[in-house]
């Protein structure tokens, strides 16, 4: 059996600093390699080094052979010829990877047309076929902004694989997907080796690694921790770090003890909401009590975010009512966003943003610093701008920002879906601790059935 990807002594440097490596591995044709590790461990650097898409500030060393051809010393133009034809790449954020101004169908068709060099009628037929297979029919003339996360994922998959490249690189392919879509994407990836393709998947989820099988590399801070057969390593990890990655899997969390529940703080009665002209759902009722932790689950696109916006008073419901307990102000309801960078002004220092909030709400700065300390954020981080801290840190800072307002209700819109499992677990544990200490009610939107079962007091399923 021939070797699809062979990597010898690959390291990635930023100036003199080694960010990742050295790693060496071989993936045979029809084989699978899973790269696992927490965010910032340098997993994506491996994929970028193989493709040749490392940012210009970074430099790769080591031998990379793709389908028997050394590629590491080739020019970028030569390496670009492999893209789509020899190596297909699934993007990390399918939504952002699609051209916002082009209809879904055309974004897939152009790969058939220009990369697979099919004729126009052939390309149209192939694209139509792909849309049917991926149950995307009806979405042909939609713009990416009108696609759900799961649909965007499938459109990107169809576009990336149109030219039947034998190797598939998938970087965090399940990021932010709901349970059902998550399973489907993993199944689709698992089919790749069965049909003779080679799969290199990057993930932080042990469950995904387990399902894909093959071989595994575990990275921590850019260093190789463990390497070998996926089944063996996941069954009996030799390293403590691998062990902690497995424990951070929500499936393995202990059930949290019930919260101390007080009187009703927010009552939602017969609520119906709509986004644009599209009515999402109606007849939603909820009695939220002080200190209570409620999980809200449901497939993507059902309107969970819209529901939270209506509960927070950010969106006018179509019908029904949201009423706060009399003593609570509008600001006692705070929202946490799914994508922390999108919830901060990106050119303003974090300290400035937080100080503004503290001043507006007459909260002592020392109290804010204390909250940050509880959340494990060192005050020196606040001198940075939002894109200079990690996603996990930023999400904790956004929790601190919400707490600065001294809320009684926190509406959390998948606050940890973009974080790696270890950070996710820590963040949710902190949120739990703070809610208990201050009798704050939390509504947590989550895709993960394990999180809702283990973390919350009760679960409401939509749809």
């Amino acid at each position: 059996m021939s070797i699809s990807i062979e990597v010898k002594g690959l390291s990635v440097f930023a100036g003199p600093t080694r960010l990742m490596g050295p790693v060496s591995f071989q993936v045979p044709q029809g084989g699978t390699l899973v790269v696992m590790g927490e965010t910032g461990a340098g997993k994506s650097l491996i994929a970028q080094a193989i493709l040749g898409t490392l940012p210009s500030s970074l430099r790769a060393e080591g031998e990379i052979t793709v389908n028997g051809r050394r590629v590491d010393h080739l020019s970028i133009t030569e390496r670009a010829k492999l893209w789509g034809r020899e190596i297909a790449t699934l993007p990390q954020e399918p939504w952002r990877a699609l051209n916002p101004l082009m209809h879904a169908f055309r974004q897939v068709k152009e790969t058939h047309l220009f990369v697979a060099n099919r004729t126009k009628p052939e390309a149209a037929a192939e694209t139509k076929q792909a849309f049917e297979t991926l149950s995307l029919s009806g979405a042909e003339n939609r713009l990416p902004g009108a696609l759900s996360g799961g649909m965007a994922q499938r459109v990107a998959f169809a576009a990336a694989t149109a030219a039947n490249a034998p190797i598939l690189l998938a970087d965090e392919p399940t990021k932010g997907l709901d349970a059902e879509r998550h399973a489907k994407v993993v199944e689709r990836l698992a089919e790749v080796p069965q049909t003779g393709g080679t799969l290199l998947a990057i993930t932080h989820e042990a469950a995904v690694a387990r399902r894909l099988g093959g071989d595994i590399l575990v990275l921590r801070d850019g260093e190789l921790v463990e390497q070998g057969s996926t089944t063996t390593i996941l069954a009996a990890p030799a390293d403590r770090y691998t062990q902690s990655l497995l424990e951070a899997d929500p499936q393995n969390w202990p059930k949290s003890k019930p919260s101390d529940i007080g009187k009703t703080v927010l009552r939602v009665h017969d609520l119906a909401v709509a986004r644009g002209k599209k009515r999402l759902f109606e007849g939603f009722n909820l009695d939220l009590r002080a200190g209570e932790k409620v999980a809200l689950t449901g497939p993507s696109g059902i309107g969970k975010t819209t529901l939270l916006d209506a509960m927070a008073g950010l969106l006018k419901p179509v019908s029904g009512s949201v009423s706060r307990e009399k003593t609570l102000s509008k600001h006692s309801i705070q929202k946490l966003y799914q994508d922390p960078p999108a919830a901060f002004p990106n050119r303003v220092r974090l300290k400035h943003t937080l100080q503004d909030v503290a001043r507006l709400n007459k909260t002592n700065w020392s109290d804010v610093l204390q909250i940050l300390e509880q959340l494990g954020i060192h005050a020196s981080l606040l001198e940075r701008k939002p894109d200079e801290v990690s996603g996990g840190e930023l999400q904790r800072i956004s929790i601190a920002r919400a707490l600065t307002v001294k809320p009684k209700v926190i509406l959390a819109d998948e606050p940890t879906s973009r974080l790696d499992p270890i950070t996710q677990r820590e963040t949710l544990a902190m949120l739990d601790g703070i809610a208990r200490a201050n009798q704050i009610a939390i509504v947590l939107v989550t895709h993960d059935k394990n999180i809702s079962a283990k973390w919350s007091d009760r679960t409401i399923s939509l749809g």
Partner: protein
Amino acid sequence: MTIFFKSAIAVLATRGLQAVIVAIIVGIVSFAMMHALPGDAAYRIAAGRYGYDMMDAAAAEAVRLELGLDSPWFVQLWNWLGQLAQFDLGNSLVYGTPVVDEIATQLGYSLLLAAGAVVTSLMIALPVGIATALNPNGLLDRVTMGLSVFLRAVPAFALGIVLVFIFAVKLKWFPVAGFRGFENLVLPSFTLGIGLAAVSNRVVRDAVVDAMNSDWQMFARTKGLSMRLTLMRHVLRNASLPVVTYVGVQLAYLIEGVVIVETVFAWPGIGHALVHAIFGRDIAMVQGTALTLGLLYVALNLCVDLACRGIDPRERA
């Protein structure tokens, strides 16, 4: 495409309504400002008609009677609005010719100058903006940044005079002023175009930098499209959106610039006519030219709106 036409009709309706409001406001404001000017309008108009040396109090009185300048201001304004409702701009108080005829010849020249200015600004802004975007924060980027700030800060009339001094007086490449042929178009177009390009080259640069750093640009490449196809099919359309929108924002600068630059270069356009009409207290001409400039602003904004809708399918929903 039908969706495009539907939204285009909605835009037309909004802009049409705006045009009516602009017409009324511009008419009233220019009328009020003319009345606020010191001096006796009848004397100035008589001087415009017969020359300063040939006129006297009797001539001024005759003008006053003929034009009804002694009737109360609201009667005069009402008459003008009434005529406007019949699409009649009246006659020039100085020359007696219909204002419409005067404007019809001048408008062509002003549009030519405006088009020349926009084309010049794009010819400067697009290459400079794209070149700086390819190496953000490089030397070229920082130099153009400084130069842009400087050129935007220089008023159009000063820039015009400097250009005339260098290229017309010293080098004798182009005529100083007036309009005899297309060689006259170059200096005024550059005067306006440089001011416009000073800002729009930065907008082009930012738009291209954003597009080139976008995830979708990277994905278009990794799915196998060549750099050229990625640029043609994805980057250009996305990057052109903020640029076209910004051209719309610049229209105010453009119209204001046309008035100044036409005066500096004695360009036979509407702006030049407006300034002359103000000096001659030719109220009908002032109202007519100001109205045309106002409507021109609305019409150009309409073009920008339609162009944005053509580029961005999201707007059509």
